[in-house]
């Protein structure tokens, strides 16, 4: 099925901007920002499809690398998160380095 917006680039940019801005507004203003470090855009992009970043902050004290591996694997295998194999390790690494009980980066 050919989407009608492909007719003109200008309309397509407008559609894109609308979708982008709505998506941005979906993040409540009190939800904390993730630490800016390699991997954070992918974590934000994939994980925010279904849930807010609250889950990451909330579970940091309960999880180490093994724990985050199990959580990320569950998100992919059970909940259907569209994460290709090539990104999976980076997500686990980012969460372990910045939000685990063994390693934490404090946001200023």
């Amino acid at each position, binding site marked *: 099925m050919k*989407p009608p*917006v*492909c007719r003109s*680039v200008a309309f*397509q*940019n407008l*559609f*894109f901007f609308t*979708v*982008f801005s*709505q*998506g*941005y*507004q*979906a993040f*409540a203003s*009190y*939800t904390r920002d993730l630490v800016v470090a390699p991997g954070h*855009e*992918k974590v934000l*992009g*994939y994980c*925010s*499809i*279904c*849930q*807010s970043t*609250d*889950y990451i902050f*909330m*579970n940091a*004290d*309960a*999880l180490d690398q093994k*724990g985050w591996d199990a*959580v990320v694997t569950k998100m992919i295998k*059970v*909940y*259907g*998160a*569209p994460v290709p194999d090539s*990104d999976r390790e980076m997500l686990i690494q980012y969460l372990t380095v910045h939000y685990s*009980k063994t390693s934490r980066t404090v946001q200023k």
Partner: protein
Amino acid sequence: MRFSERAQVRFPSWIVLSFFFTSISAFAGGGVSKNFERDFIRRSDRPENYETPLEVFNQLYTPANRFFVRSHLPVIPEIDVREWKLELGGPGVEKPIILSMDELKTQFEQVEVPALALCAGNRRAQFDPRVPGVQWESGAMGNARWKGVRLGDILKRAGVKKEAVEISMNGADQPVLPGTPDFIKSIPLSKAMDESTLIAYELNGQPLPQSQGYPARVVVPGWVATYWMKQVVSLQVLTQPEEGYWMKKAYRLQKGLFPSLERAFESQNNEAQVPVAEIVVNSLVTNLKSGQKVQVDRPIEVQGVAWDGGHGIQKVEVSLDGVSTWASARMGQDVGRFSWRQFFYDFTPQKKELLSLMVRATNLKGDTQPSGTVHNASGYHNNATQSIDLIVN
């Protein structure tokens, strides 16, 4: 991906996908009310998981706008009650029926049951070592008068075949991703036929708010709130146990941890695990917090609530001396076995010291609270005796 190829702006497809899905769920989910930040303690805003501040529990009935909110999935539609239908079907039903709200309210006896809704993971944050999941403190529960129709009466109208074993329940909530299992729970036929199990449309005399499952939810008194399906739209009478993720994999416990609860849902037991079902005996002090300062020689009235899965509370005991001696608290009004029971205990601290106050409930079956948590990998059923440190000065 076609959009980013033809647009002037270049975005990798995973960004496009993520914002597209996020925006869909923002539209459909209706966003988060600003009042939630004021009225609750947030655990997550999406899906909505908000718990009640402790002082609200000094009231026998929890007001609807302070009633804890738990969601499994982020897409919660707003339903027009005039278009809402409850479908009852499945292989175990004699004749499937579809009911509107008008039919529900006029064709069946209306009943009201006071009952405690309690999240299976309440007090999860208080396990040590910590357990991943929603980090509830003590506020993922609420007590209310629920009004509606007996699920059993609806089942009798439709007719239940003798091969029926369970009733599955599906609400209108939806996942964002196609691969996420829809939130479906089942209960045994015997629990569905219990006179207290309801399809409820009112909470404390008012229509359910959106946060509590408007226009109707299942109410399963004595059982944990995962079964209290919000925005219920479909019931299936099953001749085989429900096989979905939310029954077979989620909400399960190792056998042997809570033996007195293990016969509640036998069709869902397997060799190693049982489903969490019946609420375990528990108590909570509602007017004092650990670390609070109190005056020496000034009388204190300790207030709290005690509850279990519907057998009834036999006694609540208080200890002030590190569990050497226990004294019985005064019990409040008994409004029904599925409601929590208020308790009160008066004492006057005699010495300036750090005073450890402990509270323990026992039910009419003789079950009592353990001194420590029964640790489990999912963080369910935290019913350790509560201990509060008061600074007497």
